């Protein structure tokens, strides 16, 4: 069990280290900590549902010629906002990049960037799903007591404190 917890903690830390997630994710964790069990997972569920649909729509718009840059941009902007809200750092950066290319008229470049975005999004989803799966495993009965780190260990060299509450 302890191993599992450790594993979970490390996984979480890696998210930040790799900048897949940013401080905003930590904010969500804090909110959960304050008496809102499963909050993070709920939010992520909503996010992935919405963003997956949105990505499909964007893909369609991008692949259909002639593309409507304004429309595509509007959708990308939306995706950017929601990704930022959950702290999906890399995803958001990819969105920004794609937007710039669309705006610049570089259709090919935009398409390529979009693919990258899709991949990153899928990657994030897989990782988080695994993460929460493990969390559930670690604390099956008490979802409320999911280990929420006391602080986010970011790359700004904060002392790494892998404290995690026990289930």
């Amino acid at each position, binding site marked *: 069990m302890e191993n599992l917890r450790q594993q979970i903690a490390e996984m979480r830390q890696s998210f930040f280290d790799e900048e897949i997630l940013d401080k*905003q994710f930590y*904010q969500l964790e804090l*909110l959960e900590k*304050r008496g809102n069990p499963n909050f993070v997972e709920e*939010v992520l569920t*909503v996010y992935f549902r*919405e963003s997956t649909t949105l990505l499909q729509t964007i893909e369609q718009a991008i692949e259909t010629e002639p593309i409507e840059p304004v429309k595509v941009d*509007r959708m990308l902007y*939306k995706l950017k*906002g929601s990704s930022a809200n959950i702290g999906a750092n890399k995803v958001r950066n990819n969105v920004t990049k794609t937007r710039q290319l669309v705006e610049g008229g570089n259709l090919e470049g935009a398409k390529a960037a979009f693919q990258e975005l899709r991949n990153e999004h899928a990657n994030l989803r897989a990782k988080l799903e695994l993460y929460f799966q493990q969390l559930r495993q670690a604390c099956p009965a008490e979802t409320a007591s999911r280990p929420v780190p006391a602080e986010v260990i970011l790359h700004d060299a904060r002392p790494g404190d892998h404290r995690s509450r026990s289930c």
Partner: protein
Amino acid sequence: MNLSSGKEYISTASSSAGWKAGDAAAADQFPAGLRVLVVDDDPTCLMILEKMLRTCLYAVTKCSRAETALLMLRENKNGFDIVISDVHMPDMDGFKLLEHIGLEMDLPVIMMSADDGKHVVMKGVTHGACDYLIKPVRIEALKNIWQHVVRKRRNEWRDFEQSGSVEEGDRLLKQSDDADYSSSANEGNWKSSKRRKDDEDETDERDDTSTLKKPRVVWSVELHQQFVAAVNQLGIDKAVPKKILELMNVPGLTRENVASHLQKYRLYLRRLSGVSQHPSNLNSSFMSPQEAVFGPLSSLNGLDLQTLAATGQLPAQSLATLQAAGLGRSAGKPGIPMPFVDQRDIFSFENPKLRFGEGQQQHVNNNKQMNLLHGIPTTMEPKQLAGLHHTAQSMGNMNMQVASNGSQSSQNIPLLMQMAQPQARGQVINDSSLGHATRLLSPMGQPILSNGIAANVSTKTGIQENVRAPSYNPVLQTSSMLNFPMNHASELPGNSFPLGTTPGIPSLTPKVAFQEDVNSDSKGSVGFMPSYDIFNDLNQHKPQNWELQNIGMTFDASQHSNNLQGNHNHSQPVLVQQGFSSGQVNGQNKSATVVSKAIFSAGDSTGHANAQNGNQHLNSLLVDGTVRVKSETVADATPTNLYPDHFGQEDLMSALLKQQDVVAPAEHEFDFDGYSLDNIPE
């Protein structure tokens, strides 16, 4: 999937809160329990915000569609303390929502967006948002949003308190403007430039703060005049906001301000042409003094202007201002252009209308804010005046005549001329001759706007709508009409209409009810009698009081109006004061009192005149208007901006409209025949 689907919204009271506004216990816990409405089309964001706000112990309601949010807000005007909205939403632009809320409910609104571009943030400022948050929003940013609520309330109180003296009218108007402006957002700075210098400072400081009431453009008479001049120069067909803006060359004015104002103006013109004439009336000689008065228009004063304008005397611009005010006010009714009632129309109207003498002034009583065109262009023909008077009497029914005159066409004079309350009525009507405009007033006690102020007296409360079609009959015919907007204040729901503020312009609560079709609309309103809505609310005074008070407006053809200027006490005998029960008028802060004041000031028997900021103005206004009738008088009265005279009718209207969020009883539609009330009792 929306956390909150279209129509639903989930109200989540904060766990610890559960307090209700006004609940003493809750107050202790403030800001806990603050009622926040969150609008965002992104469900993820909505979910997070809700959680964060709940963590801050606020009572959160989330909504994913702007229209749903508006519905909710409308259904329960006092149900929320603050609104947080996203900028980019599919069904409605966040700024549009912001404007609506500002116009209708005047709640503090915080904008949010992932977009942190300077221009977007600036747009938020100019549209009146009290803050702008960049997404992703952090809980720390939300913790302090209660400050905006407090700040806004404080400012409102300040405005409220200030609406006192007529002198303050200006200032008051300004403040009220700030408080309840509904005009397009604009920076306060801009406003201050419009305002009188003495107010400028105040405005400046207030407007600068983003937390102040959303700075909105106040279409003062002058400004409106400039606008109209520009439009005329370009040609109504070719007048595009951009060009108008360039021609006007007013610093701080944005294209959007002009665009929205233009829209209103166009509607106004349309109405006018339907009624009788042409929009040119608007530009007709307005009573110059009006300018001051209408400035803020927020209060009835603006309305008065309209009326005055209607009489043709009022410069189209004033009316416009009034209209604007009225427009602004009536639940954001856009475009209620205060139709200036052609004098012609007014006059024709008069006869039927002026029933004042006979009837009672009822109209005045109505809260209808009669837009007394106090300053209504004096060109009212005597006959008309007389007519007005009579009608004024029956003003209570104000809608009267305005409506009746078909000609007047719906232009209900935004200025709710509170047709002198019944009491005064009698008097007013007496004089059929224009010259008697003043006379009219006197008996009536109602400010008979000799200037054919077509007050669209919309009967009471809620008349707001009525006012709409301002068919101003420039001459309030009198009598009661003048119960202008004094009521505004009261009527206005919570708007701090400076009724009192509007100097001289008895701004019938902003509701300049321009009745589109006078006929139809005015019906209700004219009957002021019933106690103007404005008044009712304001001072609860009886409409009766109004009569007198408003009537103060009855200017004697002679200079009474001059008296009005600023003298609160004008006791213009002639005017209305007759029966004023003055108390009311005075009491009304903001509200119509202002108007009534003006009117009454002429003979303000009770001294309301004084109190009424507006009264003063009214008188002035009326005076101005009446002056016309007589020929001049009042021009001086303008100190208080109440002078509807100079306001382009439109200005007035718009000002009124704008100012008056609450469509105050200004619903009265009076068709004033351009009678100018000479001595509007202060």
